[in-house]
């Protein structure tokens, strides 16, 4: 879902960057003020995991592949959507600058889609579903699916505004492909959450009880 430079004209890309910078600033403030110091290595490992997972494209039928975003996982495990903004922003900077995965001018849009929308949908989706289902794994899976498809639809709208995608085919294409990619995202998010809970139940208990 990494939008390349050539897909969005510079003036529009600049607007997305401005919005992204506001959220990056809020995320940095969250790290500085709210996140506990002993969480720093855990955040770093999650960033390494997100980088690796995003490089691993998995075939999802219909001649298409997809990779995980990881935003829901990070937001759930660390107990804040801003954790996802922080991690995804840094991962997207490394990907864009060194590996050409996502553009530089469009990095703002990519940070908004995958970091901000992915993180907020993942976090609030998880807590909303958790209060309904009482199941951590079902909630994590559902939130991860939503945190994959909603950023994809947002990207489709941005690319329609840019003149790159026609509205309906763009929404249909992004929606259909990411509904499938989201199934993989949901499964792996639930499995990784299960591994973390079995290894260290305290991490998630603290994250679930933490104020945003």
């Amino acid at each position: 879902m990494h939008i390349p430079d050539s897909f969005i004209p510079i003036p529009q890309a600049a607007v997305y960057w401005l919005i992204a910078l506001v959220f990056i600033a809020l995320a940095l403030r969250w790290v500085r003020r709210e996140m506990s110091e002993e969480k720093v290595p855990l955040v770093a490992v999650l960033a390494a995991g997100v980088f690796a997972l995003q490089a691993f494209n998995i075939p999802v039928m219909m001649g298409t592949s997809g990779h995980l975003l990881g935003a829901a996982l990070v937001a759930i495990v660390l107990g804040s959507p801003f954790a996802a903004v922080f991690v995804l922003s840094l991962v997207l900077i490394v990907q864009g600058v060194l590996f050409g995965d996502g553009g530089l001018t469009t990095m703002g849009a990519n940070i908004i889609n995958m970091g901000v929308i992915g993180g907020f949908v993942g976090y609030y989706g998880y807590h909303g579903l958790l209060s309904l289902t009482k199941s951590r794994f079902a909630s994590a899976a559902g939130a991860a699916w939503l945190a994959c498809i909603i950023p994809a639809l947002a990207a489709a709208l941005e690319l329609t505004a840019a003149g790159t995608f026609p509205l309906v085919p763009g929404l249909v294409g992004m929606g259909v492909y990411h509904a499938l990619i989201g199934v993989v995202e949901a499964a792996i998010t639930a499995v990784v959450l299960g591994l973390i809970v079995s290894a260290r139940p305290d991490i998630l208990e603290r994250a679930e009880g933490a104020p945003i």
Partner: protein
Amino acid sequence: MIPTRVLIAAGIVLALVIGIGAVFFASSDPDGLDSTALVTQGQKELTQPANPGAAVDGAALPGTFEYSAPFAEYTLGGSKLADAGLMVAGTLLALVAVLGIGRGLKALNRSRSS
């Protein structure tokens, strides 16, 4: 309960395994965004594989920016083994960047509050 140190080490190993695995096993099919672009450009049917040799035409839009990343497509252009090394470097860079900035921000917070 597994100590934090072990959890962190296991996480790093898992990330590196996934990253190296990506070099050898990741699908080369276009991703969701590129697939949608190919569909809208008439090079792919929604539910079918893309036409042979199909490539996303990104130059269609005027007023956009061009940038050539040093390691585009996560490859050095040589052996897979070298690309695996590149992926390890990228994964560790993501780790170190977050670790460094995270530590720096916490130190800043301590110095401000003291």
